[in-house]
């Protein structure tokens, strides 16, 4: 069952460095789920992480729009990009800095920071800006983090 939420929503998914495996799977999962629910989805990150996604999704079934992170930030500052929902995947200090920057630049958006990796709690403690947070100590197995994302996004999904 697909729960009908937020039609015409514009979402930006911000990805960190691709060294933690769960990010790749969850980026595809979240992008797919948002598209299924009618959202216009832009995925941004460094060239390596975007390259991994494009190879994983060669027919652009899950991800159609991508933009290099620096360009995306420049376009947000210049008011060429905007969104109603921003989801940031963060597993290092740099990603928290990017999240803080985007929170400041997108004050009207629903803003979710997904903090994960080997030691997510200290990173989550650095977040001192208004947002929703999802925190999970995870590197390889996406199941628990996926369940938490479903809950925060209000997604009802079948057990498959």
């Amino acid at each position, binding site marked *: 069952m697909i729960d009908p939420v937020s039609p015409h929503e514009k979402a930006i998914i911000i990805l*960190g*460095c691709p*060294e933690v495996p769960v990010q790749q799977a969850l980026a595809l999962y979240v992008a797919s789920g948002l598209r299924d629910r009618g959202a216009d989805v832009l995925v941004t*990150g*460094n060239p*390596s992480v975007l390259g991994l996604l494009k190879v994983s999704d060669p027919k652009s079934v899950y991800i159609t729009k991508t933009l290099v*992170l*620096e*360009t995306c*930030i*420049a376009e*947000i*500052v210049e008011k060429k990009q905007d969104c109603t929902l921003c989801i940031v995947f963060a597993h*290092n*200090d*740099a*990603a*928290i*800095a*990017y999240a*803080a*920057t985007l929170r*400041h*630049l997108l004050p009207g958006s629903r803003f979710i920071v997904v903090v994960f990796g080997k030691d997510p709690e200290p990173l989550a403690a*650095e977040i*001192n*800006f208004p947002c929703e947070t999802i925190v999970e100590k995870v590197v390889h197995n996406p199941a628990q983090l996926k369940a938490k994302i479903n809950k925060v996004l209000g997604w009802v999904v079948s057990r498959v």
Partner: protein
Amino acid sequence: MGCIESLKYEKILPLGASFKECREYVEKNYAEVWYVEPGYKLFDEYIIGLPPIALGIEEGTKITFPYTKPCHGTYLLRIEGQEEVERVRKTAKTKKQAGNIR
């Protein structure tokens, strides 16, 4: 958008410095400190970070500021640029008060 690597810069704090460390270093070591918000443009780059972002100015011509690379983290660097110094003085919102200088 430019590339910071194309400019001549000095590393003041190495890669891996936290934003808090960068801000504290600037506040402690510079008599002239300005604060800007994330997304402020400096040397043709949009500055990333946890607000407020501290910029240190010395000798009237050099700016020290944090710079973040997505994969590598943050470091504090210093670049010479008279025009950028003047622009910071005109456009940055707040300046550390003399009484706060340590």
